[in-house]
């Protein structure tokens, strides 16, 4: 037998997603359908559903003591893979052999009960994660020391600050001593000092205790620092499996090569269900490659179809970085609506959004009202319209240099004038009279 601690062979996971009739899973509809037309009932049930492969023929091996990063864009299948590894869901086909106890930090603090005290929660959470009572008792002091909450041990955790909550939760999970530790994006929370502590603990677990760690993160520096090997998932398939540096490169490459300009979304499963009076049909960029310059308007074309008469509609969108962090959201004004069955293309643009160079994707909504009033979304699509912002080359061939650490938006250029001591002014452009007075 080889020393592989995890071996996955042709692993696939299929989800069946319902369409149109989003309330079909309510009993009433099932019975209603069955009664109305018993003959067509079974046929229809199948027709309304569509298959979606979250994972398709995944195979890999991980050896004892390895620290492997699993990276990929949102929806690449990372979470599904982890859920199968931690036995929360079953694969549709294929198999995995695991040679040891698996503990997953899928979400730190799962199973904490707000009414219970810190002490009680340590025991409860330990038991949920698979520790025995004796084991928890043995490590109790260590857990408390790591979490730094000695003083509040007998306070219900609902009165904890979120930082304390996270610390306690991570402390319990980190002392689990499994052969295989699965860590999913837990480092996104907590302050810098705590993040460092968690990273340190994970390094200790893997290096000194020879345990296997699977680390899933969008935080590339952390992946580079912690892991020796990376598996890149893309659309449910293994795109790359090898040294971390190359994996991170490959991951960035996927975003770059993914220069789709037409997106049919009619059959795309929605993560957020709207009221569906109006639904998106497709999106397209009216250019060959989805590349924009920071000084340019960001624009695309959306085609919608009305399934009911709607008096007015408006669009709104949120732009995300490839790491999934929102950059900003904007709403458009309401305009006269659509007739039932009407299909219309809209050209949508954000006037000079000034995105910093980098890769982005969008979530777009059609609905009515906005954040100032009551807001209803008819339909929302996410993770779409991936685009790149590339600085234009200057006449002399120079390229603007924007550091990612400065953030994803190039704010308007600063304005300043020498201030006159006697007049207090707050530097706002809204006081032009005053400015003209002081300008020399």
């Amino acid at each position: 037998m080889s020393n592989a601690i995890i071996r996955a062979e042709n692993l696939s996971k299929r989800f069946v997603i319902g369409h149109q009739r989003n309330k079909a899973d309510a009993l009433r509809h099932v019975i209603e359908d069955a009664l109305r037309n018993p003959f067509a009932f079974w046929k229809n049930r199948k027709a309304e559903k569509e298959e979606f492969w979250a994972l398709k023929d995944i195979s890999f091996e991980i050896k004892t003591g390895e620290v492997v990063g699993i990276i990929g864009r949102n929806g690449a299948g990372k979470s599904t893979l982890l859920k199968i590894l931690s036995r929360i869901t079953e694969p549709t086909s294929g198999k995995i052999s695991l040679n040891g106890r698996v503990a997953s930090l899928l979400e730190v603090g799962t199973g904490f009960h707000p009414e219970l005290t810190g002490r009680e929660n340590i025991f409860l959470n330990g038991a949920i994660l698979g520790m025995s009572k004796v084991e928890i008792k043995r490590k109790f002091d260590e857990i408390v020391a790591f979490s730094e909450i000695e003083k509040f041990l007998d306070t219900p955790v609902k009165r904890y600050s979120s930082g304390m909550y996270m610390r306690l939760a991570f402390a319990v999970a980190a002392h689990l001593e499994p052969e295989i530790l699965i860590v999913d994006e837990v480092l996104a929370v907590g302050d810098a000092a705590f993040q460092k502590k968690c990273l340190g603990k994970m390094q200790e677990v893997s290096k000194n205790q020879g345990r296997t760690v699977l680390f899933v993160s969008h935080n590339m520096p952390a992946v580079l620092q912690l892991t020796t090997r990376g598996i890149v998932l893309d659309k449910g398939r293994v795109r790359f499996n090898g040294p971390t540096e190359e994996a991170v490169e490959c991951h960035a490459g996927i975003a770059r090569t993914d220069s789709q300009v037409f997106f049919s979304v009619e059959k795309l499963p929605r993560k957020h269900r709207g009221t569906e009076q109006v639904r998106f049909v497709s999106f397209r960029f009216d250019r060959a490659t989805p590349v924009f310059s920071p000084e340019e308007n960001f624009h695309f074309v959306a085609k919608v179809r009305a399934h009911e008469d709607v008096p007015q509609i408006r669009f709104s969108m949120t732009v995300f970085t490839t790491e999934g962090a929102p950059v900003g959201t904007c709403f458009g004004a309401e305009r006269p609506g659509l007739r039932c069955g009407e299909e219309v293309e809209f050209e949508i643009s954000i006037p000079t959004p000034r995105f910093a160079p980098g890769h982005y994707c969008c979530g777009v909504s059609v609905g009515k009202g906005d954040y100032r009033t009551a807001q209803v979304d008819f339909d929302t699509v996410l993770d779409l319209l991936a685009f790149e912002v590339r600085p234009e080359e200057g006449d002399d061939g120079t390229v603007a240099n924007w550091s990612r650490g400065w953030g994803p938006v190039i704010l308007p250029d600063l304005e300043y004038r020498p201030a006159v001591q006697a007049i207090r002014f707050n530097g706002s452009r809204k006081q032009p009279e005053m400015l003209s007075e002081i300008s020399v």
Partner: protein
Amino acid sequence: MAQTLIIEAGRTERQYWRDLWKFRELFYFLAWRDFLIRYKQTVVGIAWSLIRPFLTMLVLTMVMKVGKLPAGGVPAPLFVFCAMLPWQFFSTAMSESGNSLVNNANLVSKIYFPRLVIPASSVIVSFVDFLIAAIFLIALMFYCRFAPPPQIVFVPLFVLLVFAVSFGAGLWIAALMVEYRDFRFIVPFVVQFGLYAAPVLTMTSHVSEKWRLLYSLNPTVGIIDGFRWCILGGENLIYWPALALSALVTALLIFSGLWYFRKTERTFADMI
């Protein structure tokens, strides 16, 4: 070295019962948690598990007195409470375990353990209430200066029966609730009307011979009768065919419940 675990489509059955044993401590912890939080931030705390059946008994006793319903030759409070005891256990255990999976959705979708642990531990919590109420019944018997008949030794048998029927019904509802939240509304309805469908205020011997067997399809009928026969005796005779039928329905409920729960369990995390 830990043994190799193989995850494959449709092959979890083999590990399942072993895992159930491995997670027995979780079972205990979940029951302990539910019991702890049940009366957190209440003034009288655990006394609530005495106050609730006590007040219900008072009301029902008054109903019996006003309606001049026959109590089978025993004090009316005892007659009512003997039926209340299994009925309340059945109704709380069924609704609590029925809701348990959905209430623990965050656990189900994030962590692996045999899901059977969740509804089972909530039945246990209701069982603790049952035991407390049983102590109250003993006190009530002393107060009424009532000596139980010799067949009281059969009580554990009926406790087992009511336990099984509650767990069986709970399993069905818990598994169905994952997909059809409609049961959230159906269950309180069943509990509310079940009180009248079960012989809490009446004696089954008043039901005509013709309908009696049909009536006993309701498994709580045979159980409540059994409780009365064991604890009160006297005119509360046991009707064996009815009891046999109740036992049969109970067995059917628990085995089909286990079967359905196991069948749907693998998709809980995707559906919940």
